């Protein structure tokens, strides 16, 4: 590998640019300068931490530690899905709906990709497993958060319409069908867009990283295509599952719209 190692000075110069932006936004009274700085500090600490964790994890290659790491990533993504919703499901549902959907989609697809497509030895080798899972989780998380937010927001706003359909004798599933379709579609928009513009407007991050690290471009491209497909599948399955669960939860056993289950 013929990668150029970055020095602390390099990173410090880049950090100065962020501080400039924060200063300007403070002058413009955008009210988000502390947010910018805090996020920058968070990203530094979190990435340094994960760098050290990965170093240990790669050296040990212990399946229990890898599973634990995967679980922590999943739970963090589940929390993020929940916090991105304005009206989320109350109680444990708010958390478990997104988390279980991500588990179904991201986990199973990562395992499938490792066992059937990438085939490292052993299959759970963390150098492949953790970044793959991370990319899948990050993207399905976006899709699921968008879709669930759309679902709960629309169910709240369109309560009269949903109830009008119920009063006319439609089933709960018919009464929310258009909102359900819409929410699933919204959840899939980012990955469809990403696939459509990949390589034209932006070079996807993973591919860029591999190229910077010295991989032949075509090898990097093959990986990127694989990842795109996996993400598309994961986002699709995850979004569908989360929205289906969410729709069911919006109605009770007597097919009543229960907005009191949101908060």
């Amino acid at each position, binding site marked *: 590998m013929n990668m150029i190692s970055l020095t602390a000075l390099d990173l410090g110069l880049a950090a100065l640019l962020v501080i400039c932006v924060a200063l300007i936004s403070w002058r413009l009274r955008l009210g988000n300068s502390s947010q910018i700085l805090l996020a920058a500090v968070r990203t530094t600490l979190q990435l340094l931490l994960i760098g050290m964790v990965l170093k240990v994890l790669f050296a040990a290659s212990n399946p229990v530690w890898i599973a634990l790491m995967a679980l922590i990533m999943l739970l963090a993504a589940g929390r993020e899905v929940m916090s991105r919703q304005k009206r989320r499901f109350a109680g444990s549902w708010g958390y478990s709906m997104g988390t279980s959907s991500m588990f179904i989609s991201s986990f199973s697809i990562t395992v499938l990709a490792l066992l059937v497509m990438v085939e490292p030895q052993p299959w759970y080798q963390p150098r492949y497993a953790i970044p793959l899972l991370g990319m899948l989780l990050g993207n399905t998380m976006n899709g699921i958060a968008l879709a669930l937010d759309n679902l709960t927001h629309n169910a709240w706003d369109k309560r009269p*319409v949903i109830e*009008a*359909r*119920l*009063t*006319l*004798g439609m089933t709960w599933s018919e009464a929310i069908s258009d909102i359900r379709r819409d929410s699933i579609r919204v959840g899939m928009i980012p990955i469809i867009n990403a696939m459509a513009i990949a390589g034209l407007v932006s070079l996807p991050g993973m591919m860029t990283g591999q190229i910077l690290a010295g991989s032949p471009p075509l090898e990097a491209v093959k990986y990127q295509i694989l990842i795109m497909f996996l993400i598309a599948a994961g986002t699709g399955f995850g979004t569908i599952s989360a929205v289906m669960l969410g729709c069911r939860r919006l109605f009770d056993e007597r*097919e009543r*719209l229960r907005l009191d289950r949101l908060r």
Partner: protein
Amino acid sequence: MSQLVLDDLHSLAPGSPAQACFHLNFELTGPACLGLTGPSGSGKSLLLRAIADLDPSGGTASLDGIDRNSIVAHQWRTRVGYLSADSAWWSDQVGDHFIGLQPYGFEKLGFNDSVLNWSVARLSSGERQRLALSRLLSRSPEVMLLDEPTASLDPDRTIAVETIIADYARAHNAPIIWVSHDKDQLQRVAHHRLLLDGNGHIEALS
């Protein structure tokens, strides 16, 4: 002959004030009409929603001896037609709300079939109200739960709508529960009248 039996029926809608969730015992045999009146917030609409099973509720409701919990909810709501005070429309065109249905009483309600091509956004509140009634009756409910069905209509139209509802009730032997602020109207249309005082008490009006 349809018979609606309410036994200790009361709304348990989350977040509703207790005094609005009064208990009602009543047997209503079609085409009889029960009129409900009372101040705003006395729970008239909540009661209709409870009967239509749109909110959680206590007590029992049955139609022709069939308890509502013994059939799936959407079947119950097909049989027990509820007309809310504000009609909701989910599509831009009126006709989309009548797909697969024979529109009921367009002529008597002052429409012809061209209304199916109209845009919902351009309907007046009175037109909406009359079309919502037609939309409901097109589905041949066996009971009518009407929440202020003539609130946005002028006096002539009001009388016309009252006639249409009474005709439907006679033709289908359908019991009616009619919520109205207009006591004169209830005098005209209802066979039994109840006054809700807003504190959870019910008083029969003679």
